[in-house]
Structures are given as structure tokens and as C-alpha cells.
């Protein structure tokens, strides 16, 4: 029982760390882009809000890093 729980937890954490770049793209890069643009007084294109634009960049970039294993 304990072993199964630990094993399931380990498996969950491995998956979590595998998708961490994607989460980082959404959780950190997207708001960082939005707040940096706000700091410099830049507008988002296509009438998007700053955070929507940030997510548009951060989420695919994080996904790319997850799949490719590198950020650039």
C-alpha cells in the first residue's frame, strides 16, 4: 500500500518535471512578458490584452521546450 502510494507519487512527480518547461511558459514567462511590456508602455498587437499576448508566446514556447528539450 505504502509502496504503491510512493510509486504513484514518484510517477506523478516525474511527469510533472517533464512538463515543467510548459508550466514555466504559462506560469512565469507569460506574465513576465505581459508585465515587461506594461513596464515599457508597449501595446499588445491584434487588440489582445497583454496577458493574452504573453500566453500566446509563453505557452507555445514552453511546449516547444518540453518537446525539444531546449528553449531555443
Amino acid at each position: 500500500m505504502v509502496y504503491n502510494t510512493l510509486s504513484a507519487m514518484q510517477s506523478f512527480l516525474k511527469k510533472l518535471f517533464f512538463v515543467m518547461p510548459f508550466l514555466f511558459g504559462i506560469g512565469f514567462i507569460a506574465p513576465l512578458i505581459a508585465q515587461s511590456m506594461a513596464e515599457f508602455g508597449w501595446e499588445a498587437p491584434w487588440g489582445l490584452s497583454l496577458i493574452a499576448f504573453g500566453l500566446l508566446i509563453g505557452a507555445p514556447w514552453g511546449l516547444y521546450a518540453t518537446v525539444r528539450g531546449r528553449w531555443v
Partner: protein
Amino acid sequence: MDRIDDIGMRTGETALYDPVRDDAETRLAIPLRAGDGLDKHTRLQLRKEEQRIAKKYMSTPQQMRIYTVITVGCFLAWLSFFPLTMLDILPVWPCFIASCVFAAGGYITSHEAMHDNIGRRGTKYRFWNELVGEISTIILIFPFSMARMMHLHHHYHCNHPENDPDYTDEAPSAFKAWIKTWLNRQPGADGSIHHYKRVLERIGTKGAQKALRDTMMLQLFSMAVFFTMAWSGFAIEAALLWWLPRHIGLSYIRFWLSWAPHHPRDGHGRYENTRVFRTWFGKTWVGHWMSMGMQYHIVHHLYPGIPNHRTKYAYYELKPVLEKRGVDCSAL
């Protein structure tokens, strides 16, 4: 003659001791040339001399107090930057520069703790040793348990392609080494902390498992802080106080503490696994501070008990002995 050949004497060279030519010159144990062909007696004498000098520079708890004071002070300052910048009491840019210095310099103080230089086991100073180690590298998201185990592994297996955890830092030039410090941290790369995790899994001891657990917890904690701060409107503060200083600090220490003193990583012996090097600033104090004292890294590998701030002085006193052992000391 066979025995002499075994230790590297070339045919026709003067033998170590020639009973036929019993004069003062042939009584020498060996002509002390560039370190090759030393006999056991000479090695022993040189080692004794080396140890006598090194002993003078070994750390004492009293002189290491400054490391504790600096570490605790810098850690508290770094923590205070978060509320102070978030409340606009302090501008974020100077705090960013200070955080970068703390990130890179933190490894140096942690490094002393890895070698128990601040407080040996079983002494009343041990608590401070462990405290300094634990808090120094939080900014690098690099737990002390992992840092200590990997660093000691590096000492045991220095420059071994499989067993030296820092071997992945090797690069053909200084520029490529800087690039590699960043490439090694990519999510899918087998370098830096990713490589350390793999090494710890291979070691598999309780200590290694603890180091892996600590790493996971610190990484999850830091991600939680980044995400929470970012979505609360403080992404720039999180980036400039922690995320970016961590990357800059890691690149800096991997270049100066790993690549520069060990390049080209082809020596495995006690006197060959590190090199004495000169920075772009020659023999000036700038090079000494910029490299964080790593120009004299050979002293550290020979005697890890000599603290970082004394390796320079120990090196210059040890230099004649090192030269006799064949170390290329021409750079400094």
C-alpha cells in the same frame, strides 16, 4: 638500469646514484628537473615540505567566522529585496546586481562548508558550517546536499569522463565554455543539475536519495514562488531577484570554478588534474577577484582544508615544490 627506466629515465642520462663516481654530485637523490623521474625518497621529501607549508594555511574556526557573517548577511539582504522592491522602497536594478553577486559568491562560501572548513564534524562550530552550506546556494536552486556530494565526487574522480560530475563542462575554448554552461541547463540536456541527478541516481545511497529529494523540493518550491509572484504582478521582481541571477551565477561559477581550472580535463594525477592559469587581466587583483581565487585551484585540490582566501598565499609558498613536481607554474 631497469628500475631507472621504469621511472622514466632516458638512456644515457645520469643515474640517480653511481657508486663508481662517488662524488657530491652523484650523491643527489635525483637531479630535480621538470618533475619527471622523481624517486620515492624525493617524492616523500617534497610531500613533507608541501604538507609543512600547507599546514600553515589550513582553516581555523576563528578565521572562518567571516564566511558565516557574510553568508548570513547576504542571505538576509537577498530575502529583504523581495518585499523592499515589491513595495517600491528599493529600485529593482541595484538589487538585481547584488543578487547576481550573491548567487555567484554564494557558491564560494558553500564550497567551504562542503569541505567542513567552517566547522568540522563533532565541534561546536558544526552548526554554522551546515547553516552556511544550506543557505548559500538556495539562490542557485541547488541544495547543499547535492552540491556537497557532487563536489566531493568531483574531487575523488577529477577529470574522469564518466565519474567526474563536472566533466560535462569541458569545452574547447573559453567562449564555447560560456555557451555550454547555458546549453547544459536546457531541459533535455545531460549537463549541470540534470547530470547531477543522473549521477545521484546511479550512486543510489541514502545520502544520494536525500540529495535528490532535497533537489526536487527546492525546485518545486522555487517554481511555486516564481508562478505565485508572476501571477500576482511581480514577475519582473521574481525574474531580476532570483531567476536571472541564478542563471548568471550558475554560468559564472561553472566557467570559473569548473572549466577554467580544469581545462582541458586530460590530467588525472594529483599534480595534473588542475592547472594554474592567468585571466585576461594578467597577474592583477582584478583577475584574482574575477576568478574568485580559482587561478590557484591546484592548491584547493591538493589541500581542500585551505580556505579560498588563503590559496593565493599558499600557492606562492608552495610554488617551488609544485614546480619540482612538474606543475606548470609559468602563468603565475
